[in-house]
């Protein structure tokens, strides 16, 4: 994970471009539960749950203490993703990834997907280079 100062910088850079264009997670309300700031994580894809009512990306992230944490990142319904050209192979198991998300206000490793960049340079979702 990046330091808080770096996170704030990332948030300032990308937040403006995301607020207007992002689709809300429609299946359930997240009012008051999800932070509006962007959190960035870097890790390895454990599993891409391409399932209804929403897809989930499970990511292994090594935290500042050197321990591996599993993050759960919720994305759109897979039906919508299929029509936009994504599929169950979009996040291959074991792939290195840098991911931006809106984290749960509890600080737990769970949040809503914003965008990602894989090690091979593939960009997924909303992503602007810093």
């Amino acid at each position, binding site marked *: 994970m990046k330091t808080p100062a770096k996170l704030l910088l990332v948030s300032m850079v990308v937040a403006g471009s995301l607020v207007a264009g992002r689709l*809300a997670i*429609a*299946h*359930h*309300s*997240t*009012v*008051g*539960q999800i932070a509006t700031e962007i959190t960035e994580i870097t890790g390895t894809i454990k599993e891409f*749950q391409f*399932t*209804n*009512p*929403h897809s*989930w990306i499970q990511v292994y992230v090594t935290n500042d203490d050197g321990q591996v944490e*599993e993050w*759960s990142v*919720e994305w759109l*319904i*897979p*039906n*919508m993703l*299929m*029509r936009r050209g994504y599929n169950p192979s979009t996040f291959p198991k074991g792939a290195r990834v840098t991911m931006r998300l809106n984290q*749960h206000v*509890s600080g*737990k490793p*769970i949040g809503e997907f914003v965008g990602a960049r894989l090690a091979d340079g593939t960009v997924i979702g909303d992503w602007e280079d810093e």
Partner: protein
Amino acid sequence: MQLLAVLKSSKALKQHRTKALMALGLGIVLAAFSYTDEFSGHAAELPDFDSLPDWSGTWARRGGTVFDRATWTMNGRPADPSNRATGVSALGTRAHPPYNEEWEAIYESHLALRDRGLFPDPLTRCIAHGFPRIFNVNSPVEFVVRPEQVWILAEHTRSTMRIYTDGSSHPPPEQRWHTYFGDSRGHWDGDILVFTTVALKGWRDKDNVLDRSGLVLSDQAHATTRIQRVQEENDAGEVEDLLLVAITLEDPRALTEPWTVEKRFYKQPEGTLIFDYECNENNRAVVDEDGRSLFIGLDGEVIE
């Protein structure tokens, strides 16, 4: 089958088996007709298939997943702050439902819960949207037009809405079963599908809403819907192909006057697919007793 076995085993009846079977067959046919008549009363003839419009392909709604645009929000914030204050939609017409005092209070209480993320939307529990919310969810739909029925096949919650166009009538009030989709009967007025819907659940069991803002009607609500294919010019000057759905809702318990809402479904590019949708496959959000939808952590515990 038991009756046939008796006929076969009876010597006395054997000689008259043919007549008996004919009589039995006639009885079954008559019974079927009386059953049908009890619930419907068929039309003399069905519309000719070739006379029906072509609504093939995939159609997707645009314009927000609420009927009452005056209270529309995005991510917990008003989509247009001026709307809520004025009660005037972006289209320039009042969109707030004409509730009576009692049901306005119910709706306002739902909006207040919605603003705090506490309104228990039945979709969160994977309960089907029903009618008219089938026209108010994100996923696309298909229309199957046949002389005797029109089917609306919704991807969301895998729902099928059936509209009978065979000249049959709604069941009499005392025989109605109130369901999420109700009972829809209609006819073709040229290329316009016109149908009425009765026997809706409404808010009687607190599990059927018209949209995610908590807009509800009673189980006495009924609707007249008109669907027609039109071409409209958009802001860019392009002519778009769409199905215009106009629903006039009436409810003697909740509304003071009829309320007409519109939804637009745009023809999607050829090859646009509709996929399977099993809402219970991996629902990692739950609703607590206060109506909050919560995340479940990997340990199975609610994340607070």
